[in-house]
């Protein structure tokens, strides 16, 4: 009798667990198929570095405050490893006064820098993961450097300093007032937004680097078969770009191991992936090798800070194209290491990944409308009313769904 019950129990357990494993295997197969179909590629296929030979000396330039003509700031100041190559705060805290230094010569960074009174920029610092890799040709929140699909959009118009989009992108922060440049007499006299005037600023930065980074300058000059005195800013930009490509390249993730059969995903990660590629509609924009279509969409993240256009307004891509169809749109963020780059959104107004997902599916939950002044409420209403394209793509997600998508996104970390 007991044996019969034991057999019955054993048979039931076997039936249930085999049913579970059959279901799990189906989901895994579905997910693998969807990931492959969306343009995902192994990390090794994404790396390219035409100037590999100067990537290590590029680190020296990346960390040199001589990149800033008069602002005592380097790329590293805002792109910190401990903040996932961002700076851990909503709006960037850029140039500032001497009290931003710490005893021993370092610089205060991140939240401490913001609270110490550094000048604010209106956008969240973008991380560097995968930048300049194969197919990564669109840079900045509003795509003001965009060499994708045969385009050559940049502030340099018809004469960009390089055919390499990342090298062109490295030209911009050093001449952006308040970002890496303070407004002194020299800068004010040349603040005419003309390429010719910018050349004088670049020449001065180049001279500073030649003076303050002699060894690095020598190494770059040697690589390029030039004398140190012939070096131009573009040469230093190539070194910085080489460093960025090397240091922040995409590396194997749990997802990649899953795709190659070396690792399995947890239930939550698997379910999250199915939502990501299914009813969540995330893949409709977060597709391709970097989980970004590199196009521009309006997601009604709350606006924090004074915004690129002042008074709490940020028109996004419109500031680059002046096409009214581009109002309030921003580039789809790539998602590698997304769990490390909090906060989220163009103005860093959302602290958690859960909140970032809600900005797509349930944005009204993120905003206390009663705490907004009339104009801010009007602006938010305007953005919501124009975000219909996204509203039609995403479904409602429960809190449990959102948690599962977050679990899936964590598999993109390395």
């Amino acid at each position: 009798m007991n044996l019969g019950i034991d057999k019955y129990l054993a048979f039931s357990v076997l039936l249930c667990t085999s049913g579970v494993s059959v279901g799990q295997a189906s989901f895994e197969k579905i997910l693998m198929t969807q990931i492959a179909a969306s343009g995902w590629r192994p990390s090794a296929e994404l790396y390219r570095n035409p100037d590999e030979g100067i990537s290590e000396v590029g680190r020296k330039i990346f960390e040199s405050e001589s990149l800033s003509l008069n602002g005592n700031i380097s790329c590293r100041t805002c792109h910190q490893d401990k903040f996932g190559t961002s700076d851990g705060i909503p709006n960037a805290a850029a140039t500032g006064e001497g009290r931003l230094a710490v005893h021993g010569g370092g610089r205060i960074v991140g939240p401490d820098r913001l609270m110490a009174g550094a000048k604010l920029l209106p956008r969240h610092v973008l991380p560097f993961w995968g930048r300049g890799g194969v197919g990564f040709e669109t840079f900045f929140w509003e795509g003001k450097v965009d060499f994708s699909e045969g385009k050559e959009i940049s502030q340099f118009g018809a004469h960009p300093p390089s055919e390499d989009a990342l090298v062109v992108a490295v030209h911009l922060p050093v001449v952006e007032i308040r970002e890496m440049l303070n407004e002194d007499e020299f800068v004010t006299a040349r603040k005419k937004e003309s390429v010719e005037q910018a050349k004088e600023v670049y020449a001065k930065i180049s001279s500073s680097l030649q003076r303050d980074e002699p060894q690095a300058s020598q190494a770059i000059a040697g690589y390029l078969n030039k004398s140190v005195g012939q070096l131009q800013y573009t040469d230093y930009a190539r070194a910085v770009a080489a460093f960025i490509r090397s240091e922040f390249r995409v590396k194997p993730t749990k997802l990649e191991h899953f795709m190659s059969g070396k690792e399995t995903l947890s239930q939550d990660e698997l379910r999250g992936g199915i939502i990501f590629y299914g009813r969540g509609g995330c893949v409709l924009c977060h597709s391709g090798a970097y989980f970004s279509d590199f196009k521009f969409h309006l997601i009604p993240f709350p606006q924090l800070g004074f915004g690129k256009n002042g008074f709490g307004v940020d028109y996004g891509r419109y500031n680059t194209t002046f096409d009214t169809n581009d109002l309030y749109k921003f580039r789809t963020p790539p998602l590698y290491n997304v769990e490390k780059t909090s906060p989220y959104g163009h103005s860093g107004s959302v602290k958690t990944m859960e909140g970032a997902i809600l900005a797509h599916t349930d944005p009204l939950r993120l905003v206390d409308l009663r705490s907004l002044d009339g104009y801010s409420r009007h602006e938010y209403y305007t953005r919501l009313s124009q975000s219909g394209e996204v509203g039609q793509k995403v479904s409602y997600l429960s809190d449990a769904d959102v948690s599962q998508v977050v679990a899936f996104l964590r598999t993109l970390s390395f």
Partner: protein
Amino acid sequence: MRKKFIAGMLILNVSGAVSCIGLCGKFVVMPYLAERQYKEQYKGLMFGCDYSMREHLIAKNRFRLQPSTASEQQLESAEVGLTACHDYDRLRKKMLSMGLSSDELARFGLEAIEEKASDVQAFVRDHEFRY
């Protein structure tokens, strides 16, 4: 002779005092009063003018890219909306005549544009950004 000297000194001193008071009034008191009286109003009018100009540019670009009767009407409305800059311009000229400098007015403008910067610090404090 002595009486003439004293009278002359008196006139000189009174003239000097009046001049000092006048100069103090023009270069110190009037600008101070102008700032106290009109600064917030100036910031409000500046916002209104900036908003109208942004809306006008958007309407102009929309009409250029998608010409239609609707976008043309929107542009015409936006052009009328630019009258908001008239009040801003008038107050600006008044404040300049009261002794404030262009740089000081630019500073007020920047304060208005970046008023929401303090929201960022409050956000970081409230959400306890710690690493």
